[in-house]
């Protein structure tokens, strides 16, 4: 393997890892406060991709950032609706965690089916955002779209980490993540924080939907088809840990690309699931460790 090829594969791995990171963070955010893996996030991503696509079409290709913004707002609304219909009552009745999981799976399937009923299984493509698709730097070819996705994903994740680590809202989310009842005693409105967490995850889902739609085309199973990798990343990162999920997702992307190149694609699932299994056996708290231990 030449040095140039190594760098190209590394960048490709980080780029796909950044996409996984957005999905993993969506998982991790909700898991941190409610302790369940929200699989309806995949449906939210698909729905937002459709909304972004049809917004672009209806308004004759407005600036890209407006499409992303509209899709993100739609993501917030969808996430809040799912929370209201699917989780709010379970939360109020203090039902077992398995109910959250079942409800999230039901919503994931339902959103995908609704999209299929309305739009069929035809794929829709966002118009190109670049006149040429690649960029040459030092003899290495980079995909402009992948570089854009990477830049947006990293920026978003940095902003999110700042919000979580440096703001009162972030402090409240962390407090509710550790113990919602104690947080309530400390004057934090846990219910509002949970709703806000869903809103942030929905916002991320909106951006992820547009970016995945731009890269892969828009179709009903777009989000659900990406959920497995996001879930693996959130497990390796430590369920509920944002930083862990981001690091794990980037590593997952890089390992996947290099393993594919070296061993072939058929071996890659064995490698990835093997890594996940090792983490579950040896370090179930994941890369991040501390927060997940507190949850356990």
């Amino acid at each position, binding site marked *: 393997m030449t040095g140039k*090829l190594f760098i*190209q*594969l590394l960048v*490709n791995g980080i780029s*796909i890892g950044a*996409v996984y990171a957005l999905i993993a963070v969506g998982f991790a955010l909700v898991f941190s406060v409610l302790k369940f893996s929200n699989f309806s996030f995949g449906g939210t991503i698909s729905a937002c991709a459709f909304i972004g696509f049809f917004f672009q079409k209806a308004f004759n290709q407005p600036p890209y950032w407006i499409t992303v913004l509209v899709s993100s707002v739609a993501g917030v609304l969808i996430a809040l609706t799912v929370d209201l219909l699917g989780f709010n009552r379970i939360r109020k009745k203090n039902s077992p965690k398995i109910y959250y999981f079942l409800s999230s799976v039901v919503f994931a399937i339902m959103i995908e089916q609704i999209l*299929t*009923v309305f739009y*069929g*299984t*035809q*794929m829709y*493509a*966002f118009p*190109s955002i670049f006149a*040429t*698709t*690649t960029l040459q730097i030092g003899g290495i*070819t980079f*995909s402009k*779209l*992948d570089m854009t996705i990477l830049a947006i994903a990293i920026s978003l994740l940095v902003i999110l980490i700042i919000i979580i680590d440096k703001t009162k809202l972030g402090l409240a989310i962390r407090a509710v993540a550790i113990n919602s009842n104690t947080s309530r005693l400390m004057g934090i409105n846990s219910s509002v924080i949970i709703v806000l967490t869903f809103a942030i995850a929905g916002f991320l889902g909106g951006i992820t939907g547009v970016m995945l739609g*731009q*890269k*892969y*085309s828009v*179709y009903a*199973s777009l989000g659900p*088809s*990406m959920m*497995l*990798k996001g879930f693996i990343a959130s497990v390796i990162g430590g369920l509920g840990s944002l930083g862990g999920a981001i690091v794990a997702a980037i590593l997952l*992307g890089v390992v*996947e*690309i*290099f393993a*594919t*190149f070296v061993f*072939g*694609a*058929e071996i*890659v*699932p064995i490698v990835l699931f093997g890594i996940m299994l090792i983490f579950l056996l040896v370090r179930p708290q994941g890369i991040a460790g501390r927060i997940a231990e507190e949850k356990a």
Partner: protein
Amino acid sequence: MKKVLALLLAVVMVIGVLAGCGGQANTGGQTGTDQPSQAPSQSQGTQKDLEPIKLGNIQDLTGSASEAGVANAWGVEYAVKMINSQGGINGRMIELYTEDCKNDATEALNAYRKLVDEIGIHALIGPPLSNSAATWKELVEEDQIPCVGHFMDESCTTDENGNVYKYMFLAEPGCIQQSYSIAKFALEKLGIKTAGVLYNTANAFAVAHAKPFMDYINAKGGKIVVEETFSWSDADYSAQAAKVAAANPDAVFLSDYAAQAKLCYQQLREAGYKGIILGANTLALPFPTLVDGEIYDLYFLQNVDMFSEGTDCYDLLQAFFKENPDSTYPKVNACFGYDAVMVMADAMRRAKDPTDGAEVQALLEQTKDVPTSSGPITIDPKTHRPVGMPMYIATYDENNNVKIVDKIFVSEDALK
């Protein structure tokens, strides 16, 4: 007196039951329900002749393959309407019972059992996806239900020893013939010496295309220099694309459905590969609308020439557009559904009793030059697949319009 009264009552009851049955058979209904969608429209002949032929139709009306499945179902319904409007099969109308298999093998089996056990169909039109049709390839023999469809994987019509599944019949060239066709075109018309393949090992359709392509290239003087694979769970093919680009073959054959083939194409070009890219009929429209970037040096398979006026398929697709005004591009599956019914109807017309599965099966084996929208179909009794059907090779011009560049025939026995 009591005996006479009892006899009269018995006669009245028998007449009542017969009348009830007759009324049920004439009930109209909608596609996808237990009710037939094409009920007899007029009385003809004797009581026996009035009994309609119950034709089952299993298609992917919802799910990930519904884009093709709905068009397929339209073609079936269009053909049945046309046959009934022309007097049916030797005076007997066709009642069509359509079920949705949702691109799911379990659903396909459930649909089959429902049609056979509850409806009592006499024959079956199958879907274009082989995974679904494979679930009943042995059952149709037990139930004596002849089945015609576009399940192009050869394993739906013959087993690993080459023995036919007696009641399964294919109405288009199989995967082997199609792959040989594009390989032959690449070697002889494009002059390639080396080739690579990039395909989905988890998709039977993709594997059934990729393997024969490699066999033909290697057997006919070319050389496969790189073979890369992926599966459903892969979200990125840039590593595979980098390896293919590094090997730099004259042509690369992409084998998978459109969503994956689109990403393969893009990432091959992004990896710096500038050679020829070849593909199955999944690279037909709307493929270029999905690709981000320029399309060039791309050649793919087509079953019919959908764009030349005056052909049977062109006229059929105009009817499809008329009835489906929202459709933005021609769908060959409309032709597939139509053709399958035409092949089945031809055998039924030659049968003394078109509801006798064994007789229709035997006559399907003798199918010869049946006119369809894809040209005349002749079935090989040894394989239950068509013989002598050509494939078309198409490309996209600078405006991404489809341009047919060649018509090729290769026998699936070309390497034997």
